[in-house]
């Protein structure tokens, strides 16, 4: 009987049922997609066994530019491991950035064929991997002892048909004689986690150079041990370490829980970084969308009351118990919710095959997220049942004799409730539009912001270190030869080299003695012509010269922030690297070397001179205005394919500088896209709700419209009458939404040191948008009522 009633409802009230189901399906699909992203963010690294006892050890000094560093050398962690018995297991590992995976190309010779393999690799000590409880399906750590030993994931082993004992050669097509022997095949690590992104590990047997500070230090504590106490012990050991070397730094050490690293904005996470503001914004949007969709449900229910109430009360008159009628409404709600869930699943399935799904950090497949999907279904059914109670009680509360006589009048409280509910939808929609516009503006602002150097017609790519030569005593001949080769193309105006991407979260931090104390600054090794090519202005002293690369200690140029903070001038000499002293030859203007979240801090350009641990290998090209990117790209490919034949072409791909810069704002781009996408959907759902309310009003006011029409009202007059009411609601809701959105955006903007203006026009555009959408919706719906033959209505 209940199923029959439900089918009758769908057939009898097709339009409103359809709109109701569409609105809820869009909402449920959106909430599911958001929760997939949120689950990914909140569970990142928590899926690792014993993650609650695993910590990354971080250090900072009182004046470490406000950042916690996770960079360690090998010696200090070794000393700590030997002296802290509370550590169950601990070790160091090197991570690479996700956008620049270390794609170590390998080959394997099988009979007479050579297979090229690409494996995402990095270095780790065996103990560091033990921290993460790696398990093996074949082999193990016992043979993971030399620099030539490698362990790979089960997935890679299957993909390339590899097994323990296979010998891989580094480089494509057996390019070198360096070989790796597979010591073990480990079970794939659970996702989402940092280490699951790596398909293999090379054995890090340690590095003697104490100045190589590029390793992450992970520890697993024994049960019940206080991380704060261990951090204190580690601090003492580090102070001792520096004391032994005649240094005294005011060091702090902390143990940062693995489970919190992804959303922790006080330190970086080896490239894999979430955004707390994105995650929390998404949770808020999910809640709002759910609220909007159930408001719609209530509005649609009320839209049908004028036509349904007579039937309900006829049942009453003929003996149907009120409880049964209410149960029927409850089951109708559950039926509609279930139908919406099925449609939502279809939407999710379709969404998974669109490019938009790439903005969700993980697979949105229902099969892979079945626990989440099932929990959501249970929650939605319970929530729907609760939401249905009010309409069920409302429609059955009237005196049947009065209703059957046609004396049903919508109560004033019901009217206030419905308008308030629509008001909530409007406030949410207007707030979301304003927030979306500001997030987009901030993203654009960051991409277009004057960084303090010339980004016009600037391209970049990375060459293999081996091509430039070894560290130690530097020979610039190879570099200069490459420069000459590049300059053969007349459109390439200039070529220079930097150690990394110039705009980056994680530049090297150097702590150096200066005068009676120490100074801390970001250091960026470059070729002598880097500043000139980038258009960075010198305020004092001079720019680098070719001769600076020929003297032992090279030269330094500090930025204005460093000069002001530490009193550095062009007379200063600093022991920057190695044993030789490096003169400060100039002070340059401040420029943004970090994303615009950060203020400008002390910074130094370094020309290594005769000695350095490596050649800066990020090449920056300035090309002539109007040059076709594809032409340069083709030229470069021809050139580099020849000299870098052993490397994967992806590793030296030419890129626009602007694109490289945009990588720094990926999180903002993701937030901007997701918020825009879900805002549009929530506005759509809200408007479906408004449509439902107008449907109710036109049904309820059908009689009134007829009377007005008979007495001379035009169709336009009737449409205007309806619009006036909704525009009044829009005006009130805008007045509420504007301060709310101002507060939200103001707080969100706090994370950026450089912010776009809080322009008034953004608010104007948001209110105008919602006004126009409302007018169109209300006019479309009321048009039919206004043009109905009044005779039919009275």
């Amino acid at each position, binding site marked *: 009987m209940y199923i029959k009633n439900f089918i009758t409802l769908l057939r009898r009230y097709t339009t409103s049922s359809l709109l109701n189901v569409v609105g809820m399906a869009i909402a449920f699909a959106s909430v599911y997609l958001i929760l997939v992203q949120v689950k990914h963010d909140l569970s990142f690294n928590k899926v690792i066994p014993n993650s609650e006892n695993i910590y990354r050890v971080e250090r900072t000094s009182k004046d470490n530019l406000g950042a916690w560093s996770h960079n360690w050398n090998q010696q200090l962690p070794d000393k700590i491991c030997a002296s802290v018995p509370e550590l169950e297991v601990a070790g160091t590992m090197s991570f690479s950035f996700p956008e620049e995976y270390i794609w170590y190309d390998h080959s394997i010779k099988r009979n007479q064929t050579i297979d090229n393999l690409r494996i995402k690799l990095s270095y780790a000590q065996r103990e560091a991997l033990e921290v993460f409880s790696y398990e093996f399906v074949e082999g193990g750590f016992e043979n993971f002892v030399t620099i030539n030993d490698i362990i790979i994931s089960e997935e890679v082993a299957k993909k390339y048909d590899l097994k323990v004992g296979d010998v891989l050669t580094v480089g494509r097509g057996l390019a070198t004689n360096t070989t790796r022997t597979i010591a073990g095949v480990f079970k794939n690590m659970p996702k989402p986690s940092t280490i699951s992104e790596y398909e293999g590990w090379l054995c890090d047997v340690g590095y003697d150079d104490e100045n190589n500070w590029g390793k992450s230090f992970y520890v697993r504590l024994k049960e019940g041990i206080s991380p704060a106490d261990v951090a204190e012990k580690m601090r003492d050991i580090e102070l001792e370490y520096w004391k032994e070397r005649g240094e005294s730094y005011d060091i702090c050490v902390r143990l940062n829980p693995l489970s919190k690293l992804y959303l922790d904005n006080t330190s970086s996470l080896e490239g894999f970084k979430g955004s707390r503001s994105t995650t929390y914004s998404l949770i808020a949007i999910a809640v709002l969308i759910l609220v909007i969709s159930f408001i719609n449900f209530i509005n649609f229910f009320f839209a049908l009351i004028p036509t349904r109430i007579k039937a309900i009360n006829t049942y009453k008159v003929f003996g149907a118990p009120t409880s049964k009628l209410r149960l029927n409404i409850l089951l109708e709600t559950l039926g509609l919710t279930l139908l919406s869930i099925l449609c939502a699943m279809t939407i999710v399935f379709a969404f998974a095959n669109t490019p938009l799904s790439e903005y969700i950090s993980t697979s949105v497949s229902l099969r892979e997220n079945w626990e989440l999907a099932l929990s959501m279904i249970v929650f939605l059914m319970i929530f729907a049942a609760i939401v249905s109670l009010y309409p069920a009680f409302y429609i059955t509360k009237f005196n049947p004799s009065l209703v059957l006589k046609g004396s049903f*009048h919508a109560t004033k409280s019901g009217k206030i409730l419905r308008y308030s509910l629509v008001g909530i939808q409007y406030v949410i929609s207007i707030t979301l539009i304003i927030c979306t516009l500001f997030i987009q503006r901030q993203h654009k602002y960051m991409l277009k912001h004057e960084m303090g150097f010339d980004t016009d017609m600037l391209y970049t790519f990375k060459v293999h270190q081996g091509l430039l030569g070894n560290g130690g005593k530097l020979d610039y001949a190879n570099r200069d030869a490459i420069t000459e080769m590049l300059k053969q193309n007349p459109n390439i105006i200039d070529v220079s080299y930097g150690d990394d991407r110039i705009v980056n979260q994680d530049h090297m931090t150097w702590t150096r003695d200066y005068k009676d104390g120490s100074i801390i600054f970001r250091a960026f090794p470059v070729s002598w012509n880097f500043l000139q090519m980038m258009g960075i202005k010198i305020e004092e002293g001079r720019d680098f010269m070719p001769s600076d690369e020929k003297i032992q200690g090279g030269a330094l140029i500090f930025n204005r922030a460093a000069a002001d903070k530490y009193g550095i001038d062009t007379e200063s000499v600093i022991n920057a690297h190695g044993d030789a002293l490096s003169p400060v030859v100039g002070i340059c203007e401040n420029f943004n070397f970090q994303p615009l979240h950060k203020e400008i801090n002390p910074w130094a350009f370094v020309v290594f001179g005769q000695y350095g641990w490596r050649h800066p290998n990020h090449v920056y090209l300035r090309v002539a205005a109007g040059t076709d990117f594809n032409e340069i790209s083709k030229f470069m490919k021809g050139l580099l394919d020849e000299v870098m034949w052993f490397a994967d072409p992806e590793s030296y791909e030419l890129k626009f500088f602007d694109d490289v810069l945009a990588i720094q704002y990926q999180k903002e781009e993701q937030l901007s896209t997701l918020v825009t996408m879900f805002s549009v959907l929530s506005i759509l759902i809200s408007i479906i709700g408004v449509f439902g309310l107008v449907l109710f009003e036109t049904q309820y006011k059908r009689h009134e419209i007829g*009377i*007005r029409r*008979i007495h*001379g009202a*035009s169709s336009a007059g009737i449409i205007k009458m309806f619009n006036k009411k909704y525009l009044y609601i829009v005006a009130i809701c805008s007045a509420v939404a504007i301060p709310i959105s101002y507060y939200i955006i103001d707080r969100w903007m706090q994370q950026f040191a450089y912010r776009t203006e809080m322009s008034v026009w953004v608010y104007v555009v948001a209110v105008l948008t919602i006004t126009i959408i409302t007018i169109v919706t209300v006019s479309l719906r009321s048009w039919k009522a206004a043009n109905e*033959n009044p005779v039919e209505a009275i």
Partner: protein
Amino acid sequence: MLKVENLRKSFFTEEIETIALNGVSFEVKEGEFVAVMGPSGCGKSTLLNILGLLDNPTGGSYSLLGQEVGGLKEKDRTMFRKGNIGFVFQSFNLIDELTVSENVELPLIYMGVKSSERKERVAKILDKMNISHRSEHFPQQLSGGQQQRVAIARALVSNPKLILADEPTGNLDSKNGQDVMNLLKELNQEGTTIIMVTHSQHDAAFATRTICLFDGKIVTDVKNRL
């Protein structure tokens, strides 16, 4: 005042044609009070709707105030109705959310009459209908007789040349019904042309002429003895 010739009206539902009016012809002169009678479904209300320009005939001609109006479009019918025709319904058709004076004011708003003049005319007509003491009440706070007086006030406020009344006493007790009929009679004597649909012989007796319809055709058209 008005003349209909060979008026026809059919309704179509799922390939079935229902003939509501089948060749109705008559003329009403200014100042007449015509009662239209007949059994349910004979076409009385359909005729009244067409005369009130709420609906178009399927065939035949309808001339009102010397102008052919049978084929007017909805917009033009609305324009023509304003100020020329007043309506009184059996179920009063007052808007529940408007006060008595706002209900009466309604036709004047759509005629574009200025606010001050509207107030004046509404006050005057309510006074005439002896309901001014209830001007700020809502319809539900009034008795049936009072509501019908408000409806008549609304019909008259625009000084129409023709009043169309569809069973104006159908929802009233005999006392209130009598009052309403006296009021209509009084208006007719003042010169207003009235066409009234009714089932009641008693009410029809107030009219100066009675037209009887049966199956969409006029079967009798007689002058009443006064």
